[in-house]
């Protein structure tokens, strides 16, 4: 990997990684630290990285770094709220985000990870399996269970309309 390829990777996937880690950690500082750790490891291992798998590679590094951070800090809970400074969403978007964030709280870590990777980043089940280290069948089961929980959550909140804001 050249410097140009590395910088291009940063430009393309730094936002995606940060968003994924922010949704997972619900802490901007932790997400920021994890992003820096991820790209630092990418730079150190730039000679071993294949560019056709670069996105899955950085997400796997970020995911593993997050797992390591959790293990060190014993912190398995998320912040209650993630301030979204810098954005001025409209009311509908804000409600959607709030409901989604509330729905994600009922998911366990694996379900949240695979659902975020699937819906936010568009990874295939195979890619999510590579990133998370789960089997492909496990990924499919976790995603199914995550969506079912989210559906039940929105039905309980009488916000089935939110579902319409999906795809």
């Amino acid at each position, binding site marked *: 990997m050249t*410097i140009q390829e*590395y*910088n291009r990777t*940063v*430009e393309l996937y*730094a*936002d995606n*990684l*940060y*968003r994924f880690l*922010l949704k997972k950690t619900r802490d901007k500082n932790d997400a*920021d630290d994890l*992003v*820096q750790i991820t*790209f630092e490891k990418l*730079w150190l291992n730039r000679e071993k990285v294949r560019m056709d798998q670069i996105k899955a590679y950085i997400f796997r590094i970020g995911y593993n770094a997050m797992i390591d951070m959790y293990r060190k800090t014993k912190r398995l809970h998320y912040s209650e709220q993630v301030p*979204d400074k*810098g*954005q001025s969403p409209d009311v509908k978007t804000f409600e*959607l*985000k709030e409901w*989604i964030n509330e729905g994600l709280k009922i998911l366990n870590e694996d379900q949240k990870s695979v*659902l*975020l990777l699937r*819906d*936010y*980043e568009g990874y295939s*089940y195979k890619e999510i399996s590579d990133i998370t280290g789960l089997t492909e*069948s496990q990924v*499919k*089961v976790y*995603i*199914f*269970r995550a*969506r*079912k929980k*989210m*559906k039940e959550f*929105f039905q309980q909140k009488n916000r*089935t309309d939110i*579902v*319409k*804001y*999906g*795809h």
Partner: protein
Amino acid sequence: MDINTSNYEEFAMDYVDGTLNETDKAAMDAFLINHPEIQAELDGLDKIVLNPEDIRYERKALLLKKRKPIIMIPTSWYKMGAAAAIGGFMVFAGYKVLNNDTSSNVVPIQAQEAVQEVTPSAEESIVTEEVVVDQPLVAAVKQAPAKSKQVSTSPKVSEQAPSTSVVSTPPVVVTSPPANTVASLQDVTTESVKRQKVVIPEMPEIPAPDYDDAPLMAEVKSSPVQKVSIKQFDLNENLGVTNDANSSSPANDGFAIESFSASQKNTTTSPSNTAIEQGLTSDNGLSSPTMSTLDAEPSNSLLPKAFGIEIQKKKVLKPVKKKKQNN
């Protein structure tokens, strides 16, 4: 594939996404018909998809790597550097080679040049060496004017004198009449001895003299070596050993006998001596006592004459010459 309540979750998402193959899709449809509660779970599940938020990483610039500045060096600099390196190496190599040559060959080169300029023939080179070696003795003997004049009157000696003058200063010793400064001559001798050591290896081998070859002996004996021997004899006389040059006193013979063999005495009466004397007198018109003394020398090779000691042996025979003069 048998789909049941324990494994239907593995096929649920593919069934919702519509990516199941026909066989699995038919099995799933059959399973859902038999399990309507599971069918209710799947209904509307395709709508539960998280819409990604527009979240930006604000510190992205910190992750970017800056390119290292590339220093552009003109190609001419490389050429100049290479030329300078080659030139430096050549100078260094040349300096080394010259140092080695000069350190090991300085003396031989000078000696060779001197010999080439001075000695066109082998005989001349030998003569010059002999003269140089005996130079201190000659200087001392020169105080006796009579014999030195006799030597200088010899035409062959006078011819050889300029040749030897180039190598060292023997001609000055031979031809210059009254140089009484023995010290200065000894200084010159030290230099000439050094050069003699260099010249000797290149000196061709000289055949041993033959008594039958009287003219050759005469020529050789008329060389400065003969003069030197005579002068040394005179020096001895000056030193008080024998002051009477005309008498064949036992003192003269005694000096010769002490320093050399007695056979040289016997050679004084040998017929070859008379023959050589005649040849010398006929050639030079002069009957120098040195000739007679040299004739009396046995058939020793002339090569040792190059070393000063042998020359002194020849001088011992000088009393015979005195006898001849007396005769």
